[in-house]
């Protein structure tokens, strides 16, 4: 008994070799999701590098200058930008624990994202129709790979949003649902960020 006490005293007086506070927030999902986004960023970097290398290789297919519809790209850019801010409003409503407001702004975000995808599909269809198809040249292959990958991301973001709208409607703004909505908001803002690089480097620099 006496030995036990002295051991306890020694332990109390011993210096601490571990941190008082765990440096990571439990369960760390948001940080993990951020690291996923960074790895996704590398995928896009590879596609941008491919585009930069292959862009001049037209092999007789139409030039971007002749076929890109820049006013249409401006419209789709604003669809995505508006959807970013409406998702922001949804997060603000969520922080005030307002279920209906959260869902309404998510719905608006979904419609704007769907408009973006609609415009992109129209554009792809038009390009393929006039001969600027993925198999026409290396340049257009790299274009469809890059812009198509971004479009696929937005599409899956829309699917994810539908799932979260249903889940939130069913179970309310629980901690788990809030975490999921935060992850999707990071994903959504990240896609808008990638789109900035796409419209600057592929479309605007492409028609110059």
């Amino acid at each position: 008994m006496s030995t036990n006490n002295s051991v306890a005293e020694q332990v109390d007086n011993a210096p601490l070799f571990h941190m008082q506070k765990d440096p990571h927030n439990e369960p760390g999902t948001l940080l993990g999701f951020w690291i996923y986004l960074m790895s996704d960023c590398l995928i896009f970097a590879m596609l941008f590098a491919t585009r930069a290398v292959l862009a001049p290789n037209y092999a007789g297919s139409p030039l971007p200058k002749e076929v890109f519809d820049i006013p249409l790209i401006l419209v789709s850019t604003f669809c995505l930008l508006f959807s970013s801010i409406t998702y922001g409003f949804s997060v603000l409503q969520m922080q005030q624990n307002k279920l209906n407001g959260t869902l309404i702004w998510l719905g608006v975000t979904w419609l704007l994202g769907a408009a973006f995808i609609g415009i992109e599909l129209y554009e792809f269809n038009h390009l393929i129709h006039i001969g600027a198809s993925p198999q026409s040249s290396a340049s257009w292959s790299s274009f469809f790979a890059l812009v198509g990958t971004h479009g696929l991301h937005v599409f899956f973001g829309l699917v994810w949003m539908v799932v979260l709208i249903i889940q939130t409607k069913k179970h309310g703004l629980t901690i788990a649902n809030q975490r999921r909505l935060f992850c999707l908001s990071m994903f959504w803002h990240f896609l808008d960020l990638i789109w900035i690089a796409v419209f600057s480097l592929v479309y605007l620099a492409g028609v110059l």
Partner: protein
Amino acid sequence: MSSHDNTHQEVEGAPHASFREYMIGFGLSVILTLIPFWLVMGEVIDHRGLTIFIVVIFGIAQMLVHMVYFLHLNATSEDGWNIISLAFTVMLVAIAVAGSVWVMYNLDNNMMPSMQDVMNTLPLNSN
């Protein structure tokens, strides 16, 4: 605990956004989007390289605006792990993109002459 807020808990580590922050980010993004589109659509500057340079600068500026105001990134979020992973990613992206363009440009220069170049040197063009 107040009675009207008895069920609401927030996700640990989640950034606290504000309406003001989102509106500043949105306003800046609109400006930073419209100027490059205007430069290209209106053909304002009669110099291709300079226009591309300005478009790229505006693009980078808007990406930073998105990171700060929409993704709520700062040096202390997640105890700095966000910014460290971002810095690492930016470095990898720079190496991959700049390296690819550089290597492939040199490869292009050192390749055998294209058929067009060969045709141009043939005497039948001068006749």
